[in-house]
């Protein structure tokens, strides 16, 4: 039992011992440096090649782009302008890319009332529209609504592909999306720090830094991450022009993505799209640090549980009965 891939932390059960974590970070830092050196060399060659061929030079900018945490305001301005121009050119839609920052002292949380959720999937569709999810046969959806037999908690007995009028008798409905774990196994598995935890507890991905290895997808116990196998074709009339760099901007092929609690909305105070679309009012969202907020009232007075608590992921997404 000493192969590193069989250790419990690989499955996200336990935090890494400090010393090992330090070593890992060190290794990653080194990897990052050499990656950048390599890229710089390759880009120089590419620039020469594309210049000679008269090609679009913007892809080289993208190639050389730094990690989100190293971008200055000036860098961001240029990158956002480039991305906006790209969308304009490809689909004719004028979009605005912003970078709303975490709000001081706020930790986002979500609570979902299982007593009244009836599995109608309005949240799934609203999410797809808000977050610019592709609508072609390779479509992906961040929220999966599981139809579970009453009395069962084994998710393998659930069905995400149910059809026909809901609710069906003898079933309950369990919508699952990213739980924005406080101890996220997905983040620990990323070999290049392309996904991380923000100060407000949201787990985000720098789509331009992700190498598409999908380690994080395998590590997530909630099946919350989606991979862009195909080019993200979205009908122009479905494109949401209000976009944020770390959330719903249109993703390139070959990167991972997931629910971010609609940070383009929630960091400016609005409710997430799924919450407002739910006709039964089963979804509750807010600041976990606000002692008078709705979430804390729910945590204090309702029967609350989290999914797969034993894994120690400490989700910021709660299910309750009321």
């Amino acid at each position, binding site marked *: 039992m000493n192969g590193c891939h069989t250790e419990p932390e690989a499955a996200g059960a336990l935090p890494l011992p400090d010393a090992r974590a330090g070593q890992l970070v060190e290794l990653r830092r080194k990897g990052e440096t050499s990656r950048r050196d390599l890229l710089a060399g390759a880009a120089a060659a590419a620039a020469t090649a594309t210049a000679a061929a008269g090609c679009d030079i913007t892809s080289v900018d993208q190639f050389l782009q730094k990690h989100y*945490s*190293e*971008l*200055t*305001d000036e860098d961001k301005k240029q990158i956002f302008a480039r991305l906006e121009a790209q969308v304009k050119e490809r689909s004719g839609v004028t979009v605005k890319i912003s970078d*709303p*920052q*975490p*709000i*001081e*002292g*706020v930790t986002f949380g979500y609570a979902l*009332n299982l007593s*009244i959720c*009836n*599995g*109608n*999937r*309005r949240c*799934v*569709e609203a999410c797809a529209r808000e977050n610019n999810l592709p609508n072609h*046969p*390779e*479509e*992906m*959806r961040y929220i*999966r*609504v599981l139809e579970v037999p009453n009395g069962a908690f084994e998710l393998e007995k659930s*069905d*995400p*592909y*149910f*059809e*026909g*009028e*809901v*609710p069906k008798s003898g079933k309950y409905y369990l919508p699952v999306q990213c739980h924005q774990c406080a101890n996220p196994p997905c983040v620990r598995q990323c070999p290049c720090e392309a996904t991380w935890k923000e*100060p407000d507890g949201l787990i985000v991905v720098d789509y331009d830094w992700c190498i598409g290895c999908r380690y994080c997808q395998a590590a997530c116990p909630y099946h919350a991450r989606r991979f862009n196998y195909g080019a993200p074709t979205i009908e122009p009339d479905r494109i949401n022009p209000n976009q944020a760099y770390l959330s719903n901007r249109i993703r390139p092929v070959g990167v991972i993505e997931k629910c971010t609690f609609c940070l383009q909305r*929630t*960091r400016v*105070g*609005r*409710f997430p799209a799924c*919450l*407002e679309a*739910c*006709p*039964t*009012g089963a979804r*509750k*969202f*807010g*600041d976990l640090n606000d002692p008078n*907020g*709705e979430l804390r*009232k*729910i945590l204090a*007075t*309702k029967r609350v549980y989290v999914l797969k608590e034993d894994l120690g992921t400490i989700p910021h997404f709660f299910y309750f009965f*009321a």
Partner: protein
Amino acid sequence: MAKPVPLALGLCAALVAACSGPPERKLAPASASAHSITIELSAEHWAQFPCTQCHEKGAANTTERPLTEFHTNTGLRHGSVGGWCYRCHSNQDPDKLHLTDGTLLPFEKSYELCSGCHGDRAIDWRAGTHGLNVGYWNGPQTRRTCTLCHNPHRPAFAPMEPEKAPNPPRTMAAKEGGRR
């Protein structure tokens, strides 16, 4: 020998940039905006069709019976212990509702009437933990009144058609039977 100088300068600049580290992260300041709550009502309906157009004040036959001429599509199914139109509607003033103690209540205050029986729900609704609130989690919110989601004559949610099911992954669809 003019060329090496700018090159050296450029290198220095790059080094300085590299040593100064990543830019400092500035968080958005916490806002002190108030939690103002507007209750969304469905007032137009009864404003357009006041009950007193047909019902004279105090003149109705308040005995429970099957209705064959008017209000036949109400589909009344509310509560298991009987009760009929005049449990909630007032005969004394048909344009009003009444509480169990006889207090008259305008239609837009119907949530007060609902609270009379559904106390636990009412507490949750006032706390913001039951019902659909939209707008801002840290600012102005619109809270729907009970009857915007629940038909007061038939308050249980009717079964509904769900949005389209997700496409199964291709590997799964290719297996015999396609969907699981």
